[in-house]
């Protein structure tokens, strides 16, 4: 029925036929573009990784850190059906190196008549997910100019904390494994219940903070798999803002002690 209506339409763009064809015969291709300049441990890579796990078909990961990456990434999206752009929020908007990439991508997509579905995953350091709203609007405007289909995205608040939680997960996991091994060797009990309980509790807390992110990521993956729009959603680390601010202040004090900034006119007017 649906296909019937589809072909009855007067104008059926080539890209849509290709998509339908690919959907039936070979798998869909989704390119995940990480727009964080960080080489490793960017929050964007974490968020893209979650959605990537849930998307079926061919999935490709790319990163744009500077102009040298443009050509490679653009060639890669040429035969893609959808792209998911992961972005850090910089001064309420798209980071400058990614604005430059979007301009190139607009030119490239118009030149090669590329029709893609565009999804976005953005995260900011501040706790309110809504602070990503202007960035989402910029991406929508970009899609309109580039003749691409804006499918929406998730704007996430408290990104830095998501990163800390991700690292803590692996630390807790490591400690848990050590506990099990030590208990096993010393007492012969390879399932020490107190360690299991302790780890389960820590895992529960991390999961709880991530619930909003996981929920929307799951819904977005379903939308990508179906090839439909998702709309713009906002979510955050599930923590009241005043507690988040305390945590953020604590975080920067610790980092600034280690990096030495606290002793170099930390808050001074330079």
């Amino acid at each position: 029925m649906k296909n019937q209506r589809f072909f009855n339409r007067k104008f059926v763009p080539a890209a849509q036929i290709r998509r339908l064809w690919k959907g039936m015969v070979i798998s869909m291709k989704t390119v995940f573009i990480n727009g964080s300049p960080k080489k490793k441990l960017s929050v964007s890579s974490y968020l893209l990784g979650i959605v990537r796990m849930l998307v079926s078909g061919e999935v490709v990961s790319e990163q744009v850190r500077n102009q040298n990456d443009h050509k490679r990434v653009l060639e890669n999206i040429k035969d893609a059906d959808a792209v998911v752009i992961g972005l850090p929020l910089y001064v309420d908007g798209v980071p400058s190196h990614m604005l430059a990439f979007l301009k190139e991508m607009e030119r490239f997509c118009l030149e090669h008549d590329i029709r893609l579905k565009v999804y976005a995953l953005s995260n900011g350091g501040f706790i309110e997910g809504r602070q990503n709203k202007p960035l989402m609007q910029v991406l929508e405007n970009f899609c309109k100019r580039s003749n691409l289909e804006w499918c929406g995205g998730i704007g996430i608040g408290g990104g830095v904390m998501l990163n800390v939680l991700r690292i803590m997960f692996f630390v807790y996991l490591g400690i848990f494994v050590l506990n099990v091994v030590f208990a096993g060797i010393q007492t012969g009990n390879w399932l020490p219940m107190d360690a299991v309980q302790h780890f389960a509790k820590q895992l529960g807390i991390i999961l709880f903070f991530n619930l909003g992110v996981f929920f929307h990521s799951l819904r977005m993956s379903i939308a990508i798999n179906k090839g439909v729009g998702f709309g713009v959603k906002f979510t955050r680390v599930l923590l009241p803002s005043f507690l988040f601010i305390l945590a953020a202040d604590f975080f920067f004090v610790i980092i600034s002690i280690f990096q030495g900034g606290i002793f170099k006119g930390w808050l001074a007017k330079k």
Partner: protein
Amino acid sequence: MKTIIHDLNEKYEMILKEKCQKIISANGKYAPCQGCFGCWTKHPAGCYMKDTLETVCRDIGKTDELVIITENCYGAYSPSVKNVLDRSIGLSTPFSTYRGRQMHHTLRYGKKEKLTVYAYGDMTDAEKETFQYMVERNAINFGFQTFEFRYLESLDKSEGIN
């Protein structure tokens, strides 16, 4: 004190120079922010990249009035102007507070008077709306008490910039 950031050519730079105390030419001859937060945690109010934007956060932090003249890019600043803004977050401190009922960083140099943005180039209505909203958000983020966004139909009218 008034500072102008612009992405226009030298011809305009000459005109604009007379209208302010400090002029920052967004010529793109500098690196984009690498997101390390070193300007808060390692070498406060300075960047590890030794180019013309190394201490630009101090200039922007100290100004009372900031005027930005930029080409429109999807309802946002041109990449070279945005690069300057991204490299300016050292004008804040790593500490957080509420401003406009949302979380923001406290200001190293205190509150500033006014942010004015003039955007030129082809611009859709949706992009104008986005830009207006963006400037409002930036003003809160960087601690400006008031803001204004204006679309320049043609660059000749940049004469009217004051």
